[in-house]
């Protein structure tokens, strides 16, 4: 408590000793900052939305600005963007890919189909990816524009920054 009295808050949660080059912060803040700053999604396109996901990663929108680079293997990814329709045949595989990812992991359901099945209320399509995956963020649209995806990623970063004590007790 003594620390709080003698320091001033320069950003939410980050405190500095006045006049000294020392920043006092909690370990949560630092780790969440790192996680939000290097959010690596998996290269996993399912359908139409995957094209918009690729467009978001390409020159015009450039996800690399936010430190977001696509990784090809689930073992090295933090974020699963379910981009497109998940059919029943595909659903176990999506779940397996999710299970292969290391903690902490996040899921964005991108597009109407991933959110709720969209226009495809048919025998073959899973009605929403949330039936078998814990979804962090729903992004509707058919397909959502790249700006929408960027907004979703920024919102996810906000969500990550609010997490506490999520550093290592999954083992």
């Amino acid at each position, binding site marked *: 408590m003594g620390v709080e009295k003698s320091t001033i808050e320069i950003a939410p949660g980050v405190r500095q000793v006045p006049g000294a080059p020392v920043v006092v912060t909690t370990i949560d803040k630092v780790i969440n900052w*790192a996680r939000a*700053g290097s959010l690596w999604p998996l290269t996993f396109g399912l359908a139409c939305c995957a094209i918009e996901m690729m467009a978001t990663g390409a020159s015009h929108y*450039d996800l690399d*600005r936010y*430190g977001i680079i696509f*990784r090809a293997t689930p073992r090295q990814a*933090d974020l699963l963007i379910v981009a497109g329709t998940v059919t029943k045949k595909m659903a176990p595989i999506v779940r397996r890919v999710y299970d292969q990812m290391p903690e*902490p992991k996040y899921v964005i359901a991108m597009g109407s189909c991933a959110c709720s099945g969209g226009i495809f209320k048919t025998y073959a399509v899973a009605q929403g990816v949330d039936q078998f995956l814990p979804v962090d963020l729903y992004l509707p649209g058919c397909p959502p524009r790249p700006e929408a995806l960027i907004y979703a990623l920024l919102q996810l970063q906000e969500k990550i920054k609010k997490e506490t004590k999520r550093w290592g007790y999954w083992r």
Partner: protein
Amino acid sequence: MEDLWSNLFWFLAGTVILLIVSLLHVAYLTYAERKIIARMQQRLGPNRVGPRGLLQPIADMLKLLTKEDIIPAQVDKPVFYIAPFISLVCAGTGIALVPLWENFVISNINVGLLFILALSSLSAYGVILSGWASNSRYAFLGGLRASAQVISYEIAMSLALLSVVLMAGSLNLGDIVRAQINSPFKVYLIPQLIGFFVFIISAVAECNRTPFDLPEAETELVAGYFVEYSGMRFALFYLAEYFGMLVMSALAVTCFLGGWAGPFEVPYVPFFWFVVKVYALLFFYIWIRATLPRYRYDQLMDLGWKVLIPLGLINLFLTALIKLIF
């Protein structure tokens, strides 16, 4: 006795400094790569994490440190644990032998060149073992590719370096640089043009960089040998790759580009020219990554055995002949 202690102190201090500096270089090499490639591709590259994205490598590292470290059920555990360390240590130790400037070399041994060569071929063991231990078919294929690649390119590289040794008459890296400074052209680049060409291509192949990034070809083998690695173990592989680039560039600078020597002396910064040359070579690595497609596995072998090794041999022969005549 006092001498010994002070020697030891300077040795340790130098090691720590070099380790920190080179680790920072490696970390920021990833950042530089992302920035430079982004510029070449009409993008911006990282610019949100920290000022101008400068904290990006730190964030990446911190995130990877705190990520879950998955050990898949069927892996060969001891080998799986140790492989990334083999990779990193073998790739990184070479930097200790490179003379940054005349009076700064951590370990000035007489067989320096040989030692670096040995280390760089050992670092392939990390790759092969990780491919084997992962119990994944992609990783296995990646490991196989890596071993074949190392065998074929190590020879070409040694042949290129052998001509340098022949010219300098020493295996000590410092002596090689001194011999270069005393030679008529000041650098071995000009008399050893073929050798330099062979060396730089083999070095790219040695570091598994595009267009020779077959062991980890992302569009073919997903991530190649480190497909099952996550968290910090993956980061070690990542570091090893960039460390390898750094060591290879430093070696090229030492053996072909005249080490610390430059057209004029820069006061107080004796390693200036060394660093500039290394940066130029690193930029070259990044540049070809942005431009070239990837070779196929058998074409890579063809290039190694049918082009580079004969070229290296011819170069060695010519060098020996010139040495004999003059």
